[in-house]
């Protein structure tokens, strides 16, 4: 659990920067502009693992929680953005099951070709965010 709390602490400076930049860029899409600006911030360089620009931390946390429950991992096992499912002891059926659990959790539909490429936590979170955004964009 110590690894998880460190994650939360590290994300605080990212969020405050995002709020400032989104207030500054009124009218433009805050998500795209804010994340594009973040690449230069020293706080990002200081953090231990590079968070991909497209994945939101709460998405990553939910993905990690689902993976942990699905593979029945102990709380001490380190689960980071880069963890590969295969390295955690998941066979191909486990990976499909994880994708299905994510589909249910986020209420999205993963297409065939997308599901083949998901091998790490980060890829799953990226794809989820993209699909959720597409869904929200299409619905509005």
């Amino acid at each position, binding site marked *: 659990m110590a690894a998880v709390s460190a994650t939360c602490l590290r994300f605080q400076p990212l969020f405050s920067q995002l709020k400032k930049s989104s207030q500054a860029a009124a009218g433009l899409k805050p998500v795209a502009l804010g994340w594009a600006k973040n690449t230069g911030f020293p706080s990002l360089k200081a953090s231990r693992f590079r968070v991909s620009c497209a994945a939101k931390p709460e998405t990553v946390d939910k993905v990690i929680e689902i993976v942990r429950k699905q593979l029945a991992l102990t709380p001490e096992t380190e689960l980071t953005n880069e963890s590969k499912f295969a390295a955690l002891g998941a066979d191909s*059926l486990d990976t*499909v*099951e994880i994708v*299905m*659990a994510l*589909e249910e959790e986020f209420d999205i539909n993963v297409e065939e070709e997308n*599901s083949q490429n998901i091998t790490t936590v980060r890829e799953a979170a990226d794809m989820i965010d993209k699909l959720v955004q597409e869904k929200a964009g299409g619905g509005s």
Partner: protein
Amino acid sequence: MATATAQALRVMKVSGNSRNVEEARARVFDFFKLACRSLPAVMDIYNLDDVVTKSQLRSAISSQIRKNSHITNAKVIDMLLFKGMEELGNIVEHHKQRHHIIGQYVLGKDGTLHDSSIKDPGTSDFLKNFYSGNYF
């Protein structure tokens, strides 16, 4: 929603002639995805919301698939998939009843809910084998 998944099941042909194990493996995953996507309809039809969660049903399905994971003959896998599709079709089209679903997919071996996957270290090997079958 139930009719939509039933139609999807009719359209989707998962069983067929696989040339090798890899193709059969892809069909197995397609079948598993189809089954998982029809889970909301199943929970709705049989009113299973207070007995079991979707994720427990998912792991029940995957453990049944895993029981046959050692098979290397593609035609055998195709036959098992055909039976699986038949079962899934029966369930989705409400040809079964609630107690069938609960007995077959929710309850574990000793009649309790699926959660108890922890092995009891106290039982002897003889008894474990005896409970599971006649030949050991």
